[in-house]
């Protein structure tokens, strides 16, 4: 058996996340579990080439890591606090495959616990669930590694000291707890998606990591909304090549070259959506994915079934009222042949604090006014949007639109 670095890397990539998740359960402490896992891999690299690879490598690594962790505890003066951990014998370690699978879920629900700040949830999930290093997570989130490391340490301390449970929610708790996890995965996806038009500085794709997480969650917890989220991510990601032109400038949905949309991803996304819709009632992500599917299935922007999109937004706004959804619904109504109604609806919600400072609200209003030929009003709405926008590609896009109003192409 080879002890080449690549062999160690492969070993690590294949087993580390599962070993870590189970060791956290057995040792009751994130940091101790991580140290113990490192010790176990060192032992594996030394012993496997000599004694041969064990039949069940994951269980071997967990058992070895567990013993290393217990030794650590014995050596520390804080042993009293974790005295309860010294009791179980080897047989008491539950290493059934289903329990080990559930450990991944326990870890995910802990990392996404609502009592942690959203920044900490995202950082912890990427670090612990995706197996990325602190440096990789920091560069993917455009943060300093030291800042990120501090945030992770603080979160782990809270998990330990406040006793955030390391448990899969019960069936009764699940409807309330699942959205916490889905939200973190979708935020990770969007963090990557919104940046894909900018200069790419990292090789970690947050969109890919989010879809990997979603895939694993769908396997472990086959719920309609998990399928819906997978569909939503795939249908959005299918458009990634069309979202910027050759100069890297933003291209809006209606102007995208739809031949660049990845049909394969769209088909897989639609398949996820059908699975989600089979498990009624359709939830938040499933309804959003249904809207994305309408766009994905129109071969030209003019063929978009806006009537269906309006009905889907109606359902969304009824069940999950929010100013952002109200904004999208108003735009859909305008696009569905009722621009005056759409603009009127926008005016009705313009004073909502979440919208008045939101650049996309003003950009959407400007776009509707432009389509209506109300150039003066459109101009002032674009200027309002420009005051609030922060991302450079969006800023350039708004400036282009403003220039087009002055000198039509």
């Amino acid at each position, binding site marked *: 058996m080879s002890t080449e670095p690549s062999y160690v890397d492969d070993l690590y990539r294949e087993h580390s996340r599962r070993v870590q998740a189970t060791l956290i359960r057995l040792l009751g402490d994130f940091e101790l579990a991580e140290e113990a896992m490192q010790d176990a891999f060192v032992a594996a690299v030394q012993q496997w080439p000599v004694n041969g690879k064990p039949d069940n490598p994951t269980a071997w690594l967990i058992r070895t890591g567990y013993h290393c962790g217990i030794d650590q505890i014995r050596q520390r003066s804080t042993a009293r606090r974790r005295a309860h951990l010294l009791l179980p014998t080897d047989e008491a370690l539950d290493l059934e495959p289903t329990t080990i699978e559930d450990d991944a879920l326990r870890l995910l629900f802990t990392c996404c616990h609502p009592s942690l700040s959203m920044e900490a949830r995202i950082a912890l999930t990427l670090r612990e669930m995706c197996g990325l290093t602190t440096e990789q997570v920091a560069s993917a989130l455009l943060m300093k590694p030291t800042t990120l490391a501090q945030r992770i340490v603080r979160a782990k301390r809270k998990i330990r000291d406040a006793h*955030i449970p390391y448990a899969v929610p019960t069936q009764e*708790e699940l409807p309330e707890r699942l959205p916490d996890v889905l939200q973190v995965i979708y935020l990770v996806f969007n963090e990557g998606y919104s940046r894909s038009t900018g200069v790419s500085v990292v090789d970690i794709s947050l969109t890919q990591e989010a879809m990997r997480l979603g895939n694993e969650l769908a396997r472990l917890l086959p719920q309609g909304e998990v399928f819906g989220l997978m569909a939503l991510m795939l249908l959005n990601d299918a458009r990634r090549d069309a979202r910027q032109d050759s100069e890297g400038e933003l291209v809006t949905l209606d102007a995208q070259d739809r031949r660049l949309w990845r049909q394969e991803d769209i088909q897989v996304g639609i398949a996820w959506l059908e699975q989600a819709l089979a498990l009624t009632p359709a939830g938040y992500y499933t309804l959003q994915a249904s809207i994305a599917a309408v766009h994905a299935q129109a071969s030209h922007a003019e063929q978009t079934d806006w009537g269906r999109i309006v009905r889907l937004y109606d359902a969304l706004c009824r069940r999950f009222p929010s100013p952002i959804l109200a904004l999208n619904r108003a735009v859909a109504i305008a696009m569905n042949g009722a621009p005056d109604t759409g603009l009127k609806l926008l005016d009705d919600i313009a004073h909502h604090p979440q919208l008045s400072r939101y650049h996309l609200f003003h950009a959407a209003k400007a776009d509707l006014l432009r389509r209506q030929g109300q150039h003066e009003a459109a101009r002032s709405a674009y200027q309002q949007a420009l005051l609030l926008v922060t991302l450079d590609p969006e800023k350039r896009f708004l400036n282009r639109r403003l220039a087009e109003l002055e000198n039509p192409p």
Partner: protein
Amino acid sequence: MKYVALVYYQEQIINAMSEQAWHDLNQECVAGVERLSTNGHYLAGQALQPVETATTVRVRDDETLISDGPFAETKEQLAGFYLLEAHDLNEALQLASRIPPARLGSIEVRPVRELPPKAHKTVIGEQP
């Protein structure tokens, strides 16, 4: 595992309540404590007099300084506390969400920190 639930609300909301509404809220709290006790979650607790009755004490350079009012002027004022027994944070949060003033203000849930055992002073020349 022990948690403290600190109950905060804006006293002006309470002051604006009708006599009947205030009475009902108190009775609801009493019933809540009874329920928590039956389930073994209630260890201790107390409602507090309004913040205008608060006095703050500090000791600096051996000097005791006393001042009128609470330690911090906040939008919501501390109105009472519960000492709860819960299996983990999820259970503590669930118990806290059923404390009636959670609907009016906020409940801050904090795990308790156990102080270390008393350190034995060894005096030279004496038997421990």
